[in-house]
Structure formats: C-alpha cells, structure tokens
C-alpha cells in the first residue's frame, strides 16, 4: 500500500500564554479584552501536531501538509511569520474569530468546509491532524467533530506517537488514564489523530522553509473567506480565564528540604 499521505493539520491561534487575559462581554458575546492587541501563537497542542506532520511528510516522499486555521487573518498573518519558518506547509485560512468562545460545532463546521474545498486533496490518503484539545478550550471534541463531518471513522485522541509500517498501516499510541498508552494498529488513511504532545522538539527556524512557505501563505491570506459565528443558541453563563498565581520571594542559603516542605505546604493550602 502507498505510503504517501495528504496530511491536514487543524490549528487555531491563541494569545501568547504569558499574557494577562481579561474576559469582557461585547455586543456579540464574550471576548477577551484587547485580544487583537495581544501577541498570539499557534495553539501549542496543534503545534505539536504540525511538527509531527512535517516529520511524517519528510519521511514519506510525495506527501504534503496543509495547515487549516480559522482565525482573524490579520492575527494569523502575524503568527505565520514565526510558524512558517518551522515546517513546510500550505496554509488554508478561514477568516473567523478566535477568541476561544466559539463552540466546537461551529469551529468544526468552518474547518471541515475549508478542508472540503482544498483542490487536489486525496481523501483516501488523508490523515487529519490536530491538537487533542485545541480550539475548544479543552472540551476535546473539535477534532472528532471535524472527522465526523468528513466521514472519517478511524479516530484517535491523545496521540503521543505514530509509527508507520511498510504495508501502509500504522501503530498509534493514545494516552489513557494512569500514564499508560493504548496501542492500536490502523490499516491506513483516512484517519483522525488528535495529538497530545508528541515526541518531537520544536523545529529550528529555517529561513528557506519560511521563504518558500510565504510565497503561498500571503496569497492564501488575501483570498481567505470570512466566516461569522452564529449568534443564536449559545449563551455563556460565566467566563473565567486560567488564573496565574504568583508569590515571589527571594530565599538564599536555605536547605532544599526546607524549601520543598514550604512549597508542599503552600500547594496543600491551595
């Protein structure tokens, strides 16, 4: 069986994780204050999926990677300036809000629609990658929904490793409770793989890769179709962003055991 893959990575963007996030209510629903001013990054879960996709494509001659992203295109353009240096791909953008308050069904609709419009995509060789919990604020369902809309039955979530076999099948390690993995053998594409962290480091910035990518990224962004969130049917009762707690104190010449004991006590208090 062929070992050529058409790999699609679904990847949203999120505010740079170290920024202070403040939810607000706008006329169109909940949002993050000044979100368009905050620096953004590719969703870290999806980033791992992209690195795995690039690695897989590099070892399977003739394979190709598409990055499908639903995000405001101005922000996506900024994020691409970093991401495009790390792996070769073709961008398929959807100009849509990315505040994290879109429900997974809507995001899945955007993404599956964009995937269906890709010219030259061989659905029989399709591996649909994404972050296990991306674009759904940890609901963990977006990738399943995209897969379902595309009619892909083989789905794996919390993937840490994929190993291709000579016969075109592949072994998948999925995270399960207790720090263990479920090992599955899939006969081949099409399949959905929602990645956990994978095992690959962040690739180095490669200027040649970036330059080649950007030749197709900018025209794609210019042609990106807009997709509006539906305003009906979804109501947020309350919104709380992840809370960072910080209590800084400089301690010198103190035994490590004492510091550890204090940390333990602090954790137990929380």
């Amino acid at each position, binding site marked *: 069986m062929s070992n050529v893959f058409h790999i699609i990575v679904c990847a949203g963007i999120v505010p*740079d994780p*170290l*920024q*202070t996030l403040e939810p607000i209510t706008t006329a169109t629903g909940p949002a993050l204050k*000044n979100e*368009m*001013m*905050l*620096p953004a990054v590719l969703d870290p879960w999806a980033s791992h999926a992209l690195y795995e996709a690039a690695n897989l494509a590099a070892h399977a001659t003739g394979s190709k990677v598409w990055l499908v992203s639903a995000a405001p295109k*101005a922000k996506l*353009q*900024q994020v691409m*300036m*970093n991401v495009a*240096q790390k792996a070769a791909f073709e961008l398929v953008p959807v100009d849509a809000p990315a505040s994290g308050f879109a429900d997974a069904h809507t995001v899945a609709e955007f993404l599956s629609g964009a995937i269906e419009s890709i010219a030259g995509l061989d659905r029989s060789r399709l591996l649909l990658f994404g972050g296990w919990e991306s674009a759904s604020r940890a609901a963990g369902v977006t990738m399943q929904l995209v897969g379902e809309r595309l009619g892909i039955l083989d789905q794996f979530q919390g993937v840490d490793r994929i190993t291709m076999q000579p016969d075109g099948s592949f072994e998948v390690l999925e995270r399960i409770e207790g720090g263990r993995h479920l090992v599955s053998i899939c006969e081949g594409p099409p399949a959905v793989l929602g990645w956990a962290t994978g095992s690959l*480091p962040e690739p*180095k*910035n*490669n*200027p*040649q890769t*970036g*330059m080649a990518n*950007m030749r197709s990224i*900018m*025209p794609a*962004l*210019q042609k990106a179709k807009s997709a509006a969130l539906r305003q009906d049917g979804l109501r947020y009762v309350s919104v709380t962003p992840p809370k960072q707690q*910080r209590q*800084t104190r*400089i301690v010198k010449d103190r035994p490590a055991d004492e510091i550890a004991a204090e940390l333990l006590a602090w954790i137990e208090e929380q």
Partner: protein
Amino acid sequence: MSASTSEQTPAIEPQQMSVDIVGVGFGPAMGGFLTTLSRHLLNEGGTPRLESAVAPGMPLQVICYERADGLGFGVSGAVTRARGIRASFPDAALAQIPMAVPVSEEKLVYLLDPIGASRRSLAMRIADFKVRLLGSLMGSRDFAVELPFIPRFMQKHDGLILSLGQFNQWVSDQVTTSGVMQLWPGMPVSEPIIESTAEGEVVTGVRLTDQGVNPDGTPSEQFMPGMDVRAALTVVGDGPVGAVGRKLDSHFGLPPGNHKREWALGMKMVIELREDSGLKPGTVLHTLGFPEPEIFGFLYVHPERLASVGIFIPSWMRSPVRTAYRYLQHFMLHPYLRRYLDGGTLKSWGAKSLQESGRDGEPFLAGNGYARIGEGSGSTNVLAGSGVDEGWTTGVQLAEAVVELLEQKKPFTRENLEATYVRRRRLSWVDNESKIAADSRNGFEKGVVTGLIGMALAGFTRGLIAIAAHKRPLPASTSALEAIYGSRISKSEVRRLAEESAASGTALHDRIMNRCGWPEIPFDGRLLISHQDALLMGGSVQAPPGYANHVIFLHPEHCQSCEPKLCVEMCSGQAITRGENGVPAFDREKCVYCGACLWNCRSSSDGEKGNIQLRAGAGGLHSTLN
C-alpha cells in the same frame, strides 16, 4: 573571500540563500523603508515593476530579519511629531493604530523632592526651597511646578502618542499584506558578510545566528549553522546595540571625530489607569528634577485608560550605582504622578538603551552593498528628544534612493548610495535639525543646570550658540562612590556597604538608596511589584532554547577586580548578577536585550569597546503594548 565568521565556527558549511535586499532589525526606520519600497515593487496589474536579479521574472526579493520573537516587541513609549510618518500614511489610516492618539495637552513639569533623598546640589536645594515658600503663587502643587511654557524645540503638541509595539505591528501588517516582502521575527542576525573585492570591501549579505547550540555556544545534536543570506543591498536598521551595526562600526570605524559614547537607558511601564484618574487621552507630561536631578521622565496617555510612564537614566549621571527599576518606582510614587496612578494596574514593562550621541554618533551611512538607517545611524534628535519619526524618515529616504538606483539600473555602491540616499538625508529636515541639536547637550557634562542652559541656548538660537564642546567623556566614566555619596554617607560606610554587597552577592544600589533615605517601595501586587515580577507580569520575558548566551564577559579576570559592578547595577532585567569569584553571571532567561551592559562596562578602555560582548540573541520581551 574574507567573509567574517561567527566565533562558534561550525563544522557544517552554512546554507546559502540569495535575495535582492536583506534588512536587519524591524523598527520604525525599517518600517519606513519597507513601507515606501513596497509601494514601488508592482505595477497596477500585479506585474513586477522592479524585477528581481536573483529570481528573474519575479518582483524584487526583499526579506527582513528581526531578532525579537515578534515584530511588535519593541520597547518605547513614543510621542512624536510624526511629520515623516504622516507623509507616509493619511491620518485616517493612522487612526486605525491601536493605542495611537493625537496629542491634546502637553506640560513640562518640574518635580520637587518630597522625600529629601534626591542628590540635589546646594543651588537646586535653595531653588526648591524658594519654590516651596512661594507655593501656590508659582503654581506649586503636589511637590511640582507646571512650567508656564514648553520651549518650541521640545513641543510635540501637533504630534501623536504611539505604542511603538502596536505601531510596529500595524506597519508590519501593512507591509506583509502587500505580499511582496517577507518579515521574519525570531531570527537574530549574527553579523554582516564582508568581502574584499577589486572595488574594495563590500557587504554581500548577512549571516544568521547558529541554532541548536548550548548556552556556551558549543553545537548540540540539533546544531544548525546560521544561514548566509546574500543580497546586493544590506539595510541595517538594528538599532543602537544591534550586532550587525556594531560589527560595521567596528570593522569600518566611525567618521573622524564621531563617537557613540553618550547613552541613556529608558525604562517604562504601561499602566491601566483607574476609571476616574482624570487623565485624558492625548495628554503628554514631560518631567525633570526627580527622582534624581539627572533623570527625566514622561507620562503619555493612550486611549482606553492606558498610559506609558517612564524615565531615562543618562550616561552622564555619574553614579556608579544607578539601577533604573527602583528609580522608576519612586518616580511613580511622586505625589504629582501618584494622584493619577494610584489604583492603576501594570499591563506591560520594558527597557531600552537609547543612542544619545545624536549627530556625533553617525557612522558611515553607506558603503558598498550596505546602508544604515534609524537610531543606529545617528538619526535621533537629542535636542527635541525625538527618534521615531527621524528614524522612519531615514528609512523612507533610503527606499526612495533604492528605487531611483534600481530604475537607473545602477549598483548599490558607496558612491551611488551617497549620491542618492545620503544626499536626500543631508537635504532633509532630519539633517537640518540634527545640526541644530549637535552641541545642545554639551553642558550636561558639567551638571544638570548647565546642561539645561546649554539646551536652551542651542534650541532658542537654532544651534548658533551652544556650550563649547570638549573631549567627550567615556560612557562608563562614573565617579567614585565616595565622591557621589560622600556628602551624605561617610566614606567608611560607603566602603562597608560596598563590601557587604560584594560579600552577599547582591547589587549595591538598594543599600545605597536605603541609606540615603529612599523609603522601601510599598508593594501592592498590581502596580508596585518586585523587579522579577515585572519581568513576568509586564514583560513576559522569554528565552527560546537552542541559542547561545548572547552576553559574554570577554576577559573574566578584568571583572574580578571591577567594583562596583555597573553591569550588575544597571541590568534592566537582573539578568546579570554577581557570580562566583567576582565574575558576573548571565541568565539569558531574564535578558530583555536592552543593551545597558554594553555601555555600562567599566572595563572599557576607550568607552566604546568594553569587556562585555553583546551578540545577536533571540527572545526577550513578549509584550506588544510597549
């Protein structure tokens, strides 16, 4: 070929890539250059107007590298007259820039010392005493006097308040949306590639920084040598402490008589004001007099209750312990400002070195295959305290020159660039005003009051009269601790504090300030926070793995005997600390790449080449609000 090589010579040959123009550093100057050039690359139908030499049939291939992780991570609270920027964009377009607002009110405020700890001369103390006596008659309020007028040469009343981070990000969007240029953040450029040819030395491109290396620069398993990017023209806009600009300065020298020995460290916070602060968007406050006489400050009010608040620590402030962070906190606690800032919340923090030599710091603006723009090219006007618009305009001038040369199919030789770019610059307001400013700050070497008189003389006479120039001081030629603080603390106690600091491995500045009567900062966890918390909460400082340490102590043995260690005292992020055996230690994960260590090295033999090497480094601040 005599291409210079990086210190960590890789065993693997660097990859090569060719473009037509490579830019280094994305700031206002590069923004002006790329914005202007991008408008000339395509015809209306989308066909190339200026064709690439390296990719025939394609438009000119232009690429720009920026060391920071984002194109909007620059640090500067800017109020600018925006003459050059407005010539590039209509006002309606500028109104789209987040945090930008026209100046609506401008004040110059003299801050008295409400604590009694400031190092004021006797003359200043007498003057302050009189001001306090006269009180309300002179408009004294909250230990401050709002001066009745602002000298014309300092006024920004027709200008714009900008967040340079948001401005850079907005400009980069405009440039990249054009689809004809590529901007790459997170990619430090190590050095220029300089080759010897029959026509002389030519800059033929740049070498990017090695990746996949250990902190000491040795290759790791992921080693990837920095790529050589070849170009007919290298545009250098990497600011005052950029690795490429400094390498060019070092290789080609500066024009006779020029120097880059005057600096300042700017440190600022972006603060979300409480709802009833009373400050209107567009308000500009310039301050002088506090926390030390040498320290100038500012407060600019952006839309949406955001304000930029900061100070400048100049190199002519002779104290060898001049940490900016604590001074910034005392500045914010001054009663005149505190009434506005109380109840505010820190949103962003950052620091940056400013090249304050002005025209005297101008390098060779053009050479074979390269041109210099922006702050590193000496464009900052030190009289007006203005650099963003000047930098932008030099970029525009270079772009116009490049278009002219390309249309005439002339190569980027020194002669051609001088006849086009440098000629434009010499005929422009940037150059005319820099001549007026050239000697305006001479007086500060003799004291604050003399310096202010010198500025006024130069400003009001348009440069005809200025305090006589004298041999420029070395930037780190600080006075001895005892000379600075001897009148307030006994010499023996100064020595004891210094010894305690050395023994405990901590910076000296806090001890000295405490002893001089500066109160402890009342931390509130929102605005008044520890220095380290400012890195986390305000700067989100990052250091991506796989890059070498970019601050190197060239001769550690020189550092052992150096006291006080000004590099430690001045480090904006506390990234340089007192290490073992008296040699400073560097923590890359705290460095904001402000460059203060570079010009505060007291081991410098000539004021410009110290014992610290600041290499191209990745990471730093992750905030676009600055």
